[in-house]
């Protein structure tokens, strides 16, 4: 991965809903080679937005372009660039960490050689438990295993849904460092979270999503932590953090 191949993620006029109820409306966002953190209270539409970006859900209006491909018309092209770590991290509890990676890498059509899998596990500091069943793992370890899958797949657009939930301080620091490394390698990352405890320190842009709208989208360097808290409180009417 290098800067010349850094993909652009662009959405315009995006709207989405369930059964006539609009969850997202008129969203505009463009990011390339950056880490964008989308903050929002529960029910703001963060997961719906990430599912649309991952091409798992079709919007009711608007356009989505990933790496120059129209992701709504050609989701397969866009999916080749995407690495997604959702709430569940896509892990099978009764397989070992190495078996999980072998499974997903083979499904991706990649090289599932033992050495490659071990190297990916070492990168996320799970090589010591490579042959243990995931059922015995903590939430943080499962999250790291999900990230190892992304590393193996050489994804260039990383989508993380609430990656800091259930993690202790060390786990949050680890995910932040991972995000910095991913960004430095030319990747584009979008993190959706309701948690001020993670991601913001390494973000390039911070957006606030509330009631299905992007209420704010600014460079992270323009925002002091206190100002961000104040803005969040006022824009989301003090909704749950």
């Amino acid at each position, binding site marked *: 991965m290098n800067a010349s191949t850094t993909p652009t993620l662009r959405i315009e006029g995006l709207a989405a809903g369930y059964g006539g109820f609009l969850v997202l409306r008129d969203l505009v966002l463009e990011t390339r080679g950056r880490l964008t953190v989308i903050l929002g209270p529960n029910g703001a539409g963060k997961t719906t937005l990430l599912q649309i970006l991952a091409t798992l859900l079709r919007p009711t209006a608007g356009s989505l372009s990933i790496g120059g491909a129209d992701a709504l018309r050609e989701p*397969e092209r866009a999916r080749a660039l*995407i690495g997604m770590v959702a709430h*569940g991290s896509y892990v099978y*509890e009764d397989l070992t960490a190495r078996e999980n990676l072998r499974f997903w890498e083979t499904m991706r059509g990649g090289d599932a050689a033992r050495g490659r899998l071990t190297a990916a596990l070492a990168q996320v500091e799970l090589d010591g438990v490579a042959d243990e069943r995931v059922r015995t793992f903590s939430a943080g370890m499962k999250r790291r295993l999900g990230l190892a899958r992304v590393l193996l797949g050489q994804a260039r657009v990383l989508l993380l849904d609430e990656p800091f939930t259930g993690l202790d301080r060390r786990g949050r620091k680890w995910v932040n460092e991972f995000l910095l490394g991913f960004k430095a390698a030319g990747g584009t990352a979008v993190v959706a979270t309701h948690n001020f405890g993670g991601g913001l320190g390494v973000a390039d842009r911070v957006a606030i999503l509330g009631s299905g709208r992007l209420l704010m989208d600014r460079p992270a360097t323009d925002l002091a932590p206190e100002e961000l808290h104040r803005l969040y409180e006022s824009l989301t009417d003090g909704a749950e953090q």
Partner: protein
Amino acid sequence: MSACAKEPGHSAVSSYTKRAWIILWKDLLIERRAKENANALLFFCLLLLFLFQFALGPDRERLAAAVPGLLWLGFILAGLLGLGRSFLGERENDCWEGLRLTPGDKSAIYLGKLAGNCVLMTAVEIILVVLFGVFYSVDLWTPAAPLALVLGLGTIGLAAVGTLFAAMTTQVRARELLFPVLLLPVQVPVLLATVSATQALLLGQPLADVAHWLKLLAGADLVYVTIGLLTFEFVLEG
């Protein structure tokens, strides 16, 4: 044609086969470790045998006449339990989403799942056949080879539709109700052919006498598997 020109097609077939295989490998490995389906189905088979025994009494002639129907009733009921659960594991930890995001032809997932279900059902059928032979003193060994052919074809037909419908209903709240309601009507040709062929074989008729039923089974299998392969991607994408 040059080797280079052949390579992409060959590579696509190889990748498709590997993906179907890894699904089968994963399902069987999880089943071997968790034993969720295997244990429940084994216990269910034993219960069925006792229920049939109570329902029909000790009359050997009545039992012998009812064996083909009971045998397939057992397979269908065990199949409903086993097949209906075949995609539940994918819901855990959002793996269903992960499968949707994998590139390539999604029918490979269907093929791998179908193969896994066939293996599991065959194991259950072998146990049921052995138990039927022992419990009811029915000679299932003499026609074992032609019976295996009927069971094999019937299993593919049942698993082909069952795998597709299990995928369709796995995200539905009333899946336990919906799955049999969808599956059983579509299985009528398979049930008709398998029960009739099994009955004829148990009465000592040669395989040639049930050729028309075997043709019907093979035709149904072909149609069901083809429909499954062609429609699975739409089912997965919801």
